């Protein structure tokens, strides 16, 4: 079974495990999505494979309230860049979802790159595994001066509503 987890509200980066909901979301492939006459009215969200060049298609995805990015394997790093580009370059403010080989140990990295919801297998959400979420209290691109220069801009700076420094996900 798949569960969907997300920060419990837009003013907090905390996710309670009770907030995890069962999901059986259907996604459209990009090619099916692009065949729709009125893409903005699509009933289903689109799921992008990692080889899609987001720069080529962003204008067509812009109206969507959810863009899902597929992880064909847990060690495929491309969706991290896609999410970061959506947030940083296009200022995309709606939901970016991690789908596929989503592992608890990587949620923190995904979150910091701009993912805002995660479709994850039930079996990932055991106590020992979710403990893995609690290890990082802050970003690593840290600063040593008081000026915010080497500050970590992967700490959700794109979303002013989420702009709690040093925030992290907790289940």
């Amino acid at each position, binding site marked *: 079974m798949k569960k969907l987890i997300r920060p419990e509200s837009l003013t907090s980066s905390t996710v309670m495990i009770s907030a995890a909901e069962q999901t059986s979301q259907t996604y459209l492939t990009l090619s099916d999505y692009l065949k729709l006459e009125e893409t903005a009215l699509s009933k289903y969200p689109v799921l992008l494979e990692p080889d899609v060049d987001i720069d080529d298609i962003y204008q067509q995805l812009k109206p969507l309230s959810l863009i899902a990015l597929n992880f064909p394997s847990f*060690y495929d790093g491309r969706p991290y860049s896609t999410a970061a580009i959506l947030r940083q370059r296009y200022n995309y403010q709606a939901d970016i979802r991690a789908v596929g080989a989503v592992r608890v140990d990587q949620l923190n990295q995904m979150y910091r*790159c701009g993912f805002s919801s995660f479709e994850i297998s039930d079996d990932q959400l055991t106590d020992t595994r979710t403990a*893995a979420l609690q290890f990082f209290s802050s970003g*690593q*691109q840290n600063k040593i001066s008081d000026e915010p220069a080497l500050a970590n801009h*992967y700490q959700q700076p794109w979303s002013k509503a989420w702009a709690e420094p040093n925030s992290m996900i907790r289940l």
Partner: protein
Amino acid sequence: MYQYSESDQTLIEERAAQFKNQTRRFLDGDMESEEFQQHRLRNGLYMQKLAPMLRVAIPYGMLSSNQLRKLAYISEKYDQGYGHLTTRQNMQFNWPKLEQVPEILEQLSSVQMHAIQTSGSCIRNVTADQFAGVAGDELEDPRPWAEMIRQWSTLHPEFNWLPRKFKIAVSGSDHDRAAVKVHDIGLKLVTKQNTTGFQVWVGGGLGRTPIIASEIKPFLDKEHLLTYLTAVLRVYNRLGRRDNKYKARIKILVKALGPETFADRVEAEWLTLKDGPDTISQVDIDQFKRCFSHPNYLNLKNEPTKTLASTDAESRAWLDHNVLPHQKTGYAIVNISLKNLGAAPGDITSEQMNLVAELADDYSFGEIRVTHEQNLVLADVRQSELLNLWQKLEKADLATANLGLISDVICCPGGDFCSLANARSIPVAEAIQSQYQKIQEVVDIGAVDINISGCMNACGHHHVGNIGVLGVDKKGQEFYQVSVGGNASEQTQLARILGPAFPAEEIPQAVDRLVQCYRQYRLPQESFIQTFNRVGIEAFKVAAYPGIAA
């Protein structure tokens, strides 16, 4: 030397705690081995032939005496009483137990050390010139920049799952001691109109497909360093091949696109990031530079060379070869060779580590550097103390006077330890070293880099050795391919293969025939590599395979 901030310290403690949890889940069967493999590699832990191997990061080669003492303690308590220095300025332990690794990491974190990103498909430990801050030919100290790169790259959320490993080196001198052109990104500090910036080289590397890097940016203003690195990494992360791990390094992408097209892609990406949040402020630059300010040097005069060289031939040779001029009058740079016969190149015992730590405290402001040639450096020694220091090093077998000479062999752990190796490399190194033990002869031969790798992954950097030796497997037998003409310095050259591989027992003679060939052809003052470049490979082929017409 850089001291950790609170957030640096918190981070490595948290990563150690996370790894402990990951290890426990793996041992309990709650994490599949494919997933654990990726996490342990990103924490420097390999599963080797005899035991796991843990690679500890020594960022840009800088160690404090307390850190070295801690490494000595770890090698005593959890290993077999020694450590191995690698060609990327790290230290490897070959005998830890998996269950004890989390404890070792806790020990390391108590002295601001860790094993984060010393392995795996991520940005590896950043390396730099071992003489940073003291080299006479230095334009600017590369360490503040290397430290910024360390902080920026550590657990970078976007670049922790790259197509393949990624190595960055920084050099601040004209003479390149950091081998920047054989790195995924090589940064060279340069000046333009009285401001310093970076010349950016991309796509160099050794391994299966050795390639010299291409210059993609002749001058990058220093405040844009991190945004530009982000752009390079992002282009690579998105476009690098993931279907074949042998084609996954950035060098293959740069070659496939062509350096100009690659540079254009990076430039376009960079323009979207330039002046963004990762832009480095002058306040930060000043702050980072203060972390690497000079120690409290005394105002001294240079010692006359005569008084220094008044003793015996051995100390004389050591002064001639292992001691280098310093930026500051009255001081000298002391190199401690870990290439004495009888020990594997780059190996150092716990007793030696403790002694070097003590000598660093007594003679060199408590700091030690590790070189990519697998030696150690005491960078700030008063010239008047050189002979006292020599005597103490000599008693501990640490005064071998061969820096940069033929017996200063660079060598990977090879088939004795490494499960990737096709052949052993340490016995070959020893056999070669053993025929060059007479100091007069070694000095007469002069500067020759011999590099030995046990497999094509090239940890011994055989492609850039003046003489390179590569272990190959021929139907279960260890054979060695010999190449000539490599150069790791600013005139980077890749060595060329001479011909058919030799069995192990023939390697020392084959190497010596190349050395004698050089002696036969050399002009006065000409080094091995200069003679090779002038004479060409044919003469060396003839010498290597006597009795066979070229």
